[in-house]
């Protein structure tokens, strides 16, 4: 059990995909303006990540068995693209307001490097199937956490009325960097907590 907890927390805090590994920055900056769409995006990415690992992990075993590891990227992207399209249909059918709020960023999850990143990194780590699934869940929750934290930061920044030249993307990037630095403080925590 400790093994799974260690993987989960290290994915959420220590190896946070957005704020530590700097993957998936596009939706992180694009849809973090409003709380509801930030949470929606985080949820959508979490679902895609877990499903992507559930499908890509067996495919990776197949690729290894047939000596076709070089096909990893194209095979994974195919799977992820399918999943994102599926998710888009589901959202359009059951949550039209969220579908509208996410807009173009929803199909862009396809090219979200965080999703491809979590699929390839769990393979590189050599996780077993359940471990890989937990890692995917952790990565998704980490993304959700980063979105929610950054949404709060952004709202504060907007209210603080930054100087005109910094307004918009410049101050957003600066505050993203400072937010990311705060997560650096978690490195080493997991080793002490779980003795891994």
């Amino acid at each position, binding site marked *: 059990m400790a093994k799974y907890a260690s993987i989960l927390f290290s994915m959420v805090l220590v190896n946070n995909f957005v704020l530590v590994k700097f993957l998936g920055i596009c939706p992180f900056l694009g849809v973090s303006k409003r709380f509801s769409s930030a949470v929606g995006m985080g949820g959508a990415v979490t679902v895609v990540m877990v499903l992507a690992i559930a499908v890509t992990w067996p*495919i990776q075993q*197949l690729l290894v068995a047939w000596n*076709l590891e070089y*096909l990893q990227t194209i095979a994974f992207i195919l799977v992820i693209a399918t999943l994102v399209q599926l998710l888009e249909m589901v959202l359009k059918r059951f949550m039209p307001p969220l579908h509208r709020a996410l807009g173009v960023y929803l199909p862009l999850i396809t090219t979200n490097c965080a999703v491809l990143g979590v699929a390839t990194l769990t393979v590189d780590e050599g996780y077993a199937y359940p471990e890989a699934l937990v890692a995917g869940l952790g990565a998704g929750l980490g993304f959700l956490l980063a979105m929610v934290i950054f949404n709060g930061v952004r709202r504060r920044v907007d209210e603080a009325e930054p100087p005109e030249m910094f307004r918009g993307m410049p101050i957003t990037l600066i505050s993203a960097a400072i937010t990311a630095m705060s997560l650096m403080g978690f490195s080493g925590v997991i080793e002490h907590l779980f003795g891994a």
Partner: protein
Amino acid sequence: MGSLLLTVALVAGIGLAGSTILVVASQKLAVEEDERLVELVAMLPGANCGSCGYAGCEAYAKAMLDGAACNSCGPGGREVAQKVAAYLGVDAGDVVVKRAVVACRGTADRVVLQERAGYQGAPSCRSYSTMGHLSDGCTDGCIGYGDCMAACPYGAISLNKHDVAVVDPAICIGCGLCTTICPRHLISLQEKSDVSEVSFVLCHNTLMGKRARDACANTCLGCRRCEKVCPQHCITVENNVAHIDVSKCVGCKVCMNVCPEGAIYPLVWVPHEA
């Protein structure tokens, strides 16, 4: 050769499996979209002002498809209502034309208090009003920093020579965006009636008698003379300010003549050319 075939087969297999899932899903999860919706949204002005009572133009278009009235669009007015009604094959009904009115014709607060209060904060009525009441005179009139002017997407509001906001009825389309901005709630939407010139009290001053007169050169004293003289009984005095029910006013102008301060003005309805 064998591995090449395997490669192609594998990628094609994944692609095929994925596309099969998507085809099945798209049939199961298909959302029926009314193509009339897109055309209706295109007909509406697209200001998303909310004067129709819906969240935006798209929400209103959706409501009209479900049978809501076609004449609620303030900015669109008669023209849009008729266009939409013709498209949907229903009766357009009467279009209520609304115009915003700023109920103050005195001198702006910031001009009156320039020397006494010396307000140096942000040049915004809403910031100014958070300072509390800075004077013992009229605290109900226009502040004069023009927050409503900035809020008007059509540039219909300007400041007159006393820095009081005035709405140009020829430009105003009655979207009502300014009515929520004014911290003193001076701006209201008035429905156009059949009478060409209805009377309207351009004052919100709640002070009474002499104090009101000292505070402002153009004020309602709360003397109730108009209330007594109105043949339609459409004037009520509340909190020392007369209020005229525009829908009942017949435009006889008796109240204007009897008002000792000249605080009652005719509302001139200039037909809006779209």
